[in-house]
């Protein structure tokens, strides 16, 4: 029995994976860029399903609104547009494909502790409780009738408040370092990309 959230989860997952495949294998550069748009959109939908509303908004605003526009800029500024199709050739594609498939197999079969817990819900609080963070309660708020690992925990509150609080208390040093990094990146990008003045 598929519930509505399962259907949407797989729709967004298929959008993400399918457009990631198009990004990797499309013979034209501009198709790759626009497939990346759908990939980001699908990931934003997955964030929303996983209860990360703030991250979904950030994904749409920053990735689609910022990074993707920069990428399209890059495509249009570094190609001769008189060529009609903007081809996107491969190089070493055999070894790249072999390595990617090997890495995918490794990632999907890695014997990590969280994989063992999926079969039964009993061992869930063992793994979570043995972590240094605060232990997960045995009955976490979940959709009724499912195992805790098999369902999305329902957050009835928004995630913006705890993220904001923790960014400015727990992670305040990393936050300040990230702001310095952004400043340095902005200055560096401007000074690298400007025209040489003789």
């Amino acid at each position: 029995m598929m519930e509505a959230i399962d259907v949407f989860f797989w729709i967004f997952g298929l959008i993400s994976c399918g457009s990631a495949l198009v990004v990797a294998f499309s013979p034209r550069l501009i198709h790759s860029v626009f497939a990346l748009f759908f990939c980001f959109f699908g990931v934003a939908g997955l964030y929303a399903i996983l209860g990360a509303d703030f991250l979904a908004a950030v994904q749409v605003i920053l990735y689609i609104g910022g990074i993707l526009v920069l990428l399209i800029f890059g495509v249009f500024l570094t190609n001769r547009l008189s060529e009609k199709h903007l081809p996107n050739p491969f190089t070493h594609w055999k070894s790249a494909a072999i390595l990617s498939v090997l890495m995918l197999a490794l990632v999907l079969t890695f014997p990590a502790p969280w994989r063992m817990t999926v079969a039964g819900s009993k061992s869930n609080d063992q793994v979570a409780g043995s972590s240094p963070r605060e232990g997960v309660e045995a009955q976490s708020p979940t959709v009724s009738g499912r195992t805790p690992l098999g369902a999305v925990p329902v957050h009835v509150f928004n995630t913006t408040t705890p993220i904001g609080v923790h960014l400015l208390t727990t992670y305040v040093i990393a936050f300040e370092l990230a702001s310095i990094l952004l400043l340095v990146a902005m200055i560096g990008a401007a000074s690298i990309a400007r025209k040489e003045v003789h």
Partner: protein
Amino acid sequence: MPTLAPSLNNCLLISGLMFACGLFCVLGRKNSVSLLMGVELILNAANLNLVSFGTFLYPKTFYHGHCFAIFVIVLAASETAIFLAILLSLYQYQEKVDVDEVHALKG
């Protein structure tokens, strides 16, 4: 038993596929912009992993995963800006942005 519900394993499956596509993009493409797109795919897969681990393994303190994802997004944004600046000056310098053609720094 595999389930169709949004579970940790299903999220890891999706992000693993995205990661493999990004890896192929980085390793097997000639154009630098395509390489950057592969890096973005890999970072997105990592972000999805962070969020799903936070959601499924730590339902009480899931927002720590979100905070890490925000830092990854900041890094991705600055990396894209720097990469495009380098790409533009490279294009002014030698009219090509294919990774095979950039060997001026080779020893």
